[in-house]
């Protein structure tokens, strides 16, 4: 009896697990179909790198949910896929872009650029030129009336041979004194202004394909031929008029005499983005200023916030200090407001014309510092704001860390006659740095890339004169990168931007590894095995 019940139970369980397995496979198939469809669409649009990523994700998800061995990974399949797509792939892509000329005049892919170039036309010697008038129908089809140099007039329709113009035939109405039809059935004559602004008109090839007529200028239409032809086997572009050949060099079709065709296309240019920073003085000068300020800013920010935070925790660390709790809460205020908001508040307060700070300074001391136009005052202002933003964090961290230093050490030092000063430098600081050191590095990394502060408070200004791209005295690398990529008044340059990003990547990687070494985080992985 008992055994049959157990059998029944296990059979039930088996059926259940069979069912759940089937359900799982069904879901995997559905997800795969969706992913494959999306990948296919990516390929069709020419987004190959992204298509590769999606192929990997599809394979990964399928493998993980089919193979029992990969069971633990099922718990993190979505998270890992998202990480691959939005964290790892962007980093790799940035590295790739750093070695290309991606940016203004190199925004297109090679086929797109060739297509663009092949739209350019020229008038061959034997080609005929005409005066023209355009007619347009309701559904945006066109007829061109043309007159050649000998005074012969024709009607040109798309894909048909030219017709001579006779009033009353082919829907042509009466002619005016120049021989131009006043109306054609279903078509309206365009006045010169309308015709000149009609963007479609220049793209249409009227008449037979072999000697099609195209509108060239408001006064002339002509039997134009494509100026550039692309030769796929040799990968060259030939100018049909002059016979000059252009070969692709680093993303631009270039002739042997060095003439370049515009637009260029995205292409790998090797280390050019990196070397140009070292060779071009218009780039090198500002970059050197930005790098040195970046390091100084990050170091000073950490130093100042840490010092003030530590000073407060030592100074007011005595638990018997009256009003300690209230004091701590009030000093914590900067920490609790989203930093974007406080940065903007400071920007308003420090406005030299309408800000409250200069108003107070003016009435107290009769001074009104130009916080935003003088580069040194701007740097000081940034450090003040960052001190305000950052000290509560170190106040919290150090007050916790101070409590963990055993009292006996201090007592022993006191017995030995160490002064308060000595106790601080010989005991407190060294012991504190052991526990707070990694956080100092983290804070350095954070401030090194403190885009929000620089961008929102001052926008990197005041501008550095003579810089060939947008750059300011208070710009740090990351805000400089952002300007290159998104706010270039003189054009965007993703290649440059990415090249600098790589420099930051490497720096962060080194600092982080140092931080991990200090925290023993690597070893923690093995814990609790």
């Amino acid at each position, binding site marked *: 009896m008992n055994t049959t019940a157990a059998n029944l139970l296990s059979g039930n369980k088996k059926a259940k697990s069979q069912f759940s397995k089937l359900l799982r496979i069904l879901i995997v198939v559905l997800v795969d179909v969706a992913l494959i469809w999306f990948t296919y669409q990516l390929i069709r649009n020419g987004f190959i790198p992204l298509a590769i990523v999606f192929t990997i994700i599809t394979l990964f998800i399928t493998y993980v949910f089919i193979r029992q061995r990969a069971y633990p990974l099922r718990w993190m399949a979505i998270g890992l896929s998202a990480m691959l797509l939005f964290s790892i792939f962007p980093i790799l892509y940035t590295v790739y872009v750093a070695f290309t000329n991606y940016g203004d005049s190199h925004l297109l892919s090679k086929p797109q650029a060739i297509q663009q170039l092949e739209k350019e036309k020229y008038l061959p010697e034997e080609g005929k030129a005409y005066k023209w008038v355009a007619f347009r129908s309701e559904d945006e089809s066109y007829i061109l009336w043309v007159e050649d140099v000998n005074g012969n007039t024709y009607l040109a329709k798309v894909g048909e041979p030219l017709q001579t113009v006779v009033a009353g035939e082919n829907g042509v109405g009466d002619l005016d004194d120049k021989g131009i039809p006043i109306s054609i059935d279903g078509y309206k004559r365009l006045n010169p202004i309308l015709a000149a602004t009609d963007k479609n008109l220049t793209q249409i090839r009227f008449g037979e394909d072999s000697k099609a007529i195209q509108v060239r200028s408001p006064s002339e239409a002509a039997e134009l031929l494509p100026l550039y032809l692309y030769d796929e086997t040799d990968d060259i572009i030939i100018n049909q008029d002059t016979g000059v050949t252009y070969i692709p060099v680093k993303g631009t079709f270039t002739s042997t005499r060095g003439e370049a065709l515009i637009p260029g296309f995205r292409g790998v240019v090797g280390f050019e983005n990196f070397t140009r920073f070292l060779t071009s003085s218009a780039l090198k000068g500002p970059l050197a200023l930005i790098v040195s300020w970046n390091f100084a800013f990050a170091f000073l920010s950490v130093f100042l916030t840490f010092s003030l935070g530590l000073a407060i925790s030592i*100074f007011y660390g005595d638990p018997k200090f009256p009003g300690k709790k209230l004091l701590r809460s009030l000093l914590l205020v900067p920490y609790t407001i989203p930093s974007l908001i406080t940065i903007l508040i400071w920007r308003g307060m420090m406005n030299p014309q309408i*800000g409250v700070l200069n108003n107070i300074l003016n009435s107290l001391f009769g001074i009104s510092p130009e916080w935003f136009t003088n580069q040194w005052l701007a740097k000081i202002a940034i450090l003040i704001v960052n001190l305000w933003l950052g000290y509560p964090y170190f106040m919290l961290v150090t007050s916790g860390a101070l409590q963990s230093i055993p009292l006996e050490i201090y007592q022993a030092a006191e017995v030995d006659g160490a002064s308060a000063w000595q106790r601080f430098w010989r005991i407190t600081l060294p012991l504190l740095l052991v526990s707070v050191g990694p956080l100092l590095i*983290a804070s350095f990394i954070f401030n090194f890339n403190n885009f929000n502060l620089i961008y929102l408070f001052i926008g990197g200004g005041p501008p550095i004169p003579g810089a060939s791209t947008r750059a300011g005295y208070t710009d740090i690398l990351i805000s400089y990168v952002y300007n290159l990529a998104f706010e270039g008044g003189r054009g965007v340059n993703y290649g440059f931007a990415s090249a600098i990003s790589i420099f930051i990547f490497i720096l962060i990687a080194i600092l982080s590894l140092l931080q991990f070494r200090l925290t023993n985080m690597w070893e923690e992985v093995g814990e609790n095995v």
Partner: protein
Amino acid sequence: MSSYSGFKKLRKSQKFNQTFGIVIKWIIAVFLIVFSVFPLVWIISASFNPASTLATQTLIPRNPGLDNYKFLLGNPVFPYFKWLWNSIKITTISTILTLSLTTMAAYAFSRFRFKGRRAMLKGILLIQVFPNLLSIVALFLILTQFGSIIEQIGLDTHLGLIIVYLGGAMGMNIWLMKGYMDTIPRDIDESARVDGATDWQIFTRLILPLLRPILVVIGLLTFIGTYGDFILARTLLKSNEQYTVMVGLQIYTSGMFSQKWGPFAAGALISALPIMIIYFLLQDQIIGGLTRGAVKG
């Protein structure tokens, strides 16, 4: 002079020193407090000042009024409450999804032993040290390309922004969560497993309820971080009615239109207050999480 009276004198001067010290300390503290709360006080004052000027030095404005708050309600060019709603929506959804993803992943890292586990944990930690701001060009292009296939996840969509936020979900949080889970004895799982519970049941019914403290901390940190994000929202959202409140507040102060500091002050207060209240109520938990993990963004 006997040594005893010398000692007494010393005691006396020590006591005096102590009182004197406290007075000095409080004088310095007052300066610190002014430095710390001045911007907050000033923004409160400015928000009630109908003149919409920044220059007032008097703490209580001359004719205090709610004009700035009314401006937030009724201006179609600066739809403040629409932005606030966008922020709350985006932030809530990404926080919930982030929590789900991290908790499940942390469960696997804590409870299962598999090949590549250590390497993956290290890898996750290493990847997340690079701020996604650095690869923002790539993120921008990815969403552009997404959008040309499925419009709803492209540029200028909330869904697109949310999935970009999710890309950063696996990071420090997994370490915090896994560390916490490791402290839950595995005997609990084992006894449940003997009773025939599946992994999923153990996870949802046993482990998850025990995780409440760390879920609160990570949830709040994620919420505050996402809520305060500026640059991703600024770059990936394009149209006025899609913006988040942080992008919107920046618009109030940027020179594009004439700067509107009065409404900005009111808007800043409304959007900062919930976060401030959370911080002061849950100070200790949040600080515990922060000092173990990241620097505030």
